[in-house]
Structure formats: C-alpha cells, structure tokens
C-alpha cells in the first residue's frame, strides 16, 4: 500500500510542478523539456473529450502541415488557453493561445512544422482549473530528391 501511495503522490506533484512551466515564456526556446515528452503527456491521463484535432495522417511535407483544432468542453467549463505540443520537435512548444475571455467553443486552424513523424498534442486549460488533452498521429514524409539550390 505505502509504495503505491508515495508513487501516486510523486506523480501528482511532478505533474503540478510541470504544469507551472506552461506559464513560462522561455519554454519556447527550450528543447527536450521533460513535461513535453510523449511519455509525460500520456502519463498525465487527461480526458480527451471536447478536443478534436484534424491533421492529415500522412503529411506531404514536414515543413507545412495544416492542422485544425476544435475545443468544446463537455462540462460547463470554458476554454481559457491551449497549447500545441510536438514532443519530437527540437522546440516542442509549437503554439500557445490564450483567450482573455474564456469561450465555450474555440475553433482555429494553422500550419505547423514537424521534424519527424509523431503524435501531436493539444493540451487545453479550462477556467475551472482542469485540463483536457488530445493527441493525433502524423506521419511525415521526406522529399525524394536532394536539392542543392
């Protein structure tokens, strides 16, 4: 009983501490941030209901991949901010969006770069303090020919 409890506490505290990095601006220029690793994001065990990600399963190019996101929390909470995280990118934080007026529904689109095939994560913070997260896999293909120009 005791080992399980302390492990659970450890997980709880690391996840709370790592959430604190969500507010740091420097995180955009950091690489290999632990809290943005695939493993860590999965271990957060956040609910995925309410987030839909549209991204091509097979991308033409790693340089520009269209991605649309719809966040509509199933609870009465409103979405306050969200982040797009690409764990295998050299800079894992791709985009952070904050809404000064939390919304019941947020729909947006952009084009991202992916260094390798990976799961792209969207982690949304709701105005009741909880978070929801969803991931979608994208396989990135390389150009066939070497281009020296």
């Amino acid at each position, binding site marked *: 009983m005791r080992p399980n409890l302390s492990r659970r506490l450890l997980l709880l505290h690391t996840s709370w501490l790592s959430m604190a990095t969500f507010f740091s601006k420097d995180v955009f220029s950091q690489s290999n941030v632990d809290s943005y690793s695939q493993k860590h994001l999965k271990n957060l065990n956040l609910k995925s209901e309410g987030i839909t990600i549209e991204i091509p399963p097979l991308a033409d190019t790693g*340089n520009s991949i269209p991605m649309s996101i719809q966040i509509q929390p199933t609870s009465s909470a409103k979405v306050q901010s969200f982040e797009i995280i690409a764990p295998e990118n050299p*800079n*894992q934080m791709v*985009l952070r969006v904050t809404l000064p007026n939390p919304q019941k529904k947020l729909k*947006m689109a952009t084009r991202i770069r992916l260094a390798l095939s990976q799961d792209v994560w969207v982690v949304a913070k709701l105005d009741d303090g909880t978070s929801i997260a969803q991931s979608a896999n994208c396989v990135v293909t390389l150009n066939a020919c070497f281009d020296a120009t």
Partner: protein
Amino acid sequence: MATLNQHPIRLSILGTPKVGQEVEIRVLIGHPMETGYRLGEGGNDRIPKNIIENIVIKLNQQVLMNADLGTGIAANPLLSIFVEVPKDGGMISVEWRDDLGKQGRAEKMLLAI
C-alpha cells in the same frame, strides 16, 4: 520578401457574416519563420533565427486571441479563428511582432448582415 513591404499581410473574413453565425478570420503573413537550425550557403553557418513570436487578433480593440508562436509554426504563417458575428459587426485587427523587433498590423471591417 519584396523590398517594398518586407512582410506582407493578408487578413480575410470568410463566410456569410450573419449575426450569430460563425465567420472565419484568417491571417496570412509573409515571414520566413527561420528556425535557426537551417544551414546557409556552403553548409557551414546556421541561418540566424527569425520568427514571429506573437500574433494578437482583436475585435473592436477587445482581444479575441493572443497567440505565442514557436519555431514549429510553418513559414508564411497562417492563423485562423472562427468567431460568432456580433450584432453590429466590428473592426477586426491583427498585430504581430517578431523576435527581431519587426511588427505589422492589418485591419478589416466585419459588416454584419
């Protein structure tokens, strides 16, 4: 980009702007979004980093969305957000800022029908 305006910007409002319905506000900015990882001519030096760091979209001076961008956003960034058309429409404005201090803005009237 061309020497006239180094970073052209195109702000579009797509969809029928009926009151209560959704329209898409789309911003397309001409910016290389240089990651700082690419190698230049000769393959020796890295091309210096130059990315847009922040884009703010406002409706009538009220911030709709504040976006912080990283190197993971594609070159010539496109950002679009769907908003509900308010009763009297309003002025949609976009402001962006990059890490070398360059800035840009665009405005477009959202006329509600």
